[in-house]
């Protein structure tokens, strides 16, 4: 797996040498910063109203700020993930550098894992940005850090799954825009699938809701590691990378 690390470092370098990583970081930071400021505003406002009304409804940073914010991050992530994965293989195919990777003494799996890992690491950098905001809560409040950590774990697992899907889609085309657009479509679809459960309770509706990546994040958001959900994400990661490997192989037989 030394080769996977070599590939991963090269991918990270090209994210951070080009403006891609910085633009993603800045946009994500801005968007999340707005969400945080907003959530904090509501929280403070509610606190003042409670005091005025004299009621003593317990205020909880974890329940009222961290949890909804993590939910938001999981949704915002859907928009950023295609931008991270779209170039992974599409660009190599367009410039012909895929020929270098394919003729080097490296296994396909090492290439795939290396690239996927680089994408996961870039996404973790985005998450680190959110941690800066949460740090203020710990400075001025006293939230429980365990649910937050579990939340991050859930976000990483969810992103890992979607990034694996994005990596697969990137092998299907030479065109980054197409790879990005299709990945975005798939991510969005996987998110909204859950809506059917709102009005339907047939088996089909339950299957669709189960496939929705968002439903599996809920437990993590609450600060609970549900092995069912963890296994779901792990399965999607495995399948995504497996299909990527198949796709790379078929590329050779076809091209």
């Amino acid at each position, binding site marked *: 797996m030394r080769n996977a690390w070599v590939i991963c470092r090269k991918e990270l*370098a090209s994210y951070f040498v080009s403006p891609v990583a910085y633009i993603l970081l800045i946009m994500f930071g801005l968007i999340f910063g707005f969400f945080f400021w907003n959530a904090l505003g509501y929280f403070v406002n509610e606190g003042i109203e409670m005091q005025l009304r004299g009621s003593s409804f317990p205020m909880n940073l974890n329940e009222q700020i961290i949890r909804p914010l993590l939910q938001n991050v999981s949704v915002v992530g859907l928009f950023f993930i295609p931008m991270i994965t779209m170039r992974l293989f599409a660009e190599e195919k367009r410039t*012909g550098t895929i020929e270098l990777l394919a*003729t080097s003494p490296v296994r396909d799996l090492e290439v795939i894992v290396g690239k996927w890992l680089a994408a996961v690491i870039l996404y973790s950098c985005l998450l680190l940005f959110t941690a800066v905001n949460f740090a203020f809560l710990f400075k001025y409040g006293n939230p429980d850090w365990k649910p937050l950590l579990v939340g991050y774990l859930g976000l990483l697992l969810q992103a890992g799954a979607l990034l694996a899907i994005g990596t697969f889609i990137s092998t299907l085309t030479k065109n980054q825009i197409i790879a990005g657009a299709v990945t975005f479509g798939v991510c969005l679809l996987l998110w909204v699938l859950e809506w059917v459960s709102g009005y339907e309770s047939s088996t089909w509706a339950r299957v669709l809701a189960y496939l929705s990546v968002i439903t599996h994040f809920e437990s993590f958001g609450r600060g609970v590691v549900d092995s069912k959900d963890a296994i779901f994400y792990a399965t999607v990661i495995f399948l995504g990378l497996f299909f990527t490997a198949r796709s790379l192989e078929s590329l050779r037989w076809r091209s």
Partner: protein
Amino acid sequence: MINVKELTKRYARTTAVDHISFEVGKGQIVGFLGPNGAGKTTTMRMLTCFLPPSSGSATVAGFDVLEQPLEAKRRIGYLPETPPLYPEMEASEYLRFVGKLKGLSGEELDKRIDYVCDRCAIADVRKKLLGKLSKGYRQRVGLAQAIIHNPDVLILDEPTAGLDPKQINETRDLIKNLAGSHTIILSTHILPEVEQTCEQVIIINKGKLVATDSVRNLQARARGAESVILEIAGRNGTVEPTLVQQRLVKVSGVSNVSLKNQQDGRAIFEVESQKGQLVRGDLARAVVESGWDLNELRPASMSLEEVFLQLTGNETLAEKAAAKGAQP
């Protein structure tokens, strides 16, 4: 070093490479020759384990490309038609990355990077972004990348395409220098390149092997009979071609004499003789004894261009090339 047996690549509708077999010995430079679309790149891609063959087999440095691709790849350096460069990387960074992929590390890697930079004359662009390099430099970085792990076999797909004449010469010299320690296959559709750099030629056309032989043998083979070019001048400044012709035909072994050119009291003849007969000495004697000056006597070797066109079945073009080649 390279052993190809009945290698075939079929696509849905076409057969790109059709039962090709050849062998390349250690340390040889082999030219892979063919018109565009002949299947050169496809064959090379199969040798480098990029494409799996539909049938047949190929071994490189003793390793089968299908059975033991990793071992084979370790011993191959490959320069595709367009050098596989990452525009956002610096040259040295890129070479380090490729070196690591090929299994080098530590001090050895540093040494190899210095060595290939020196060898391919890219030391002055080590810190430049690959995307900003000129075509010539890009090609050389591509070559440096191919030899970084000191492979037994080098496979170069049109290494001089798109370079200017000076760069072409430099690249050819570089390739010639690399022979000996590496076995090299290079593809091209430029014939002088093969004549200048290669010892052995493999000609393919429409996916089929047309000929494989040494450059010299191919030229001889295409001609069939031996033929000689003679330039003769009269002592008094004039020469009577018909007289000369009559005299030369009498030399034993000569089958045909034709006048090629005549000017300023000199006449150029092409003398064909039966195969296996050495007539040059007799010809020279006949000319001198008849009182003419013998300005030049040389074997009329066919240029590879004519051989190539003849072999790939383009006869009218071959004749044109022959006519052009015969003019001094």
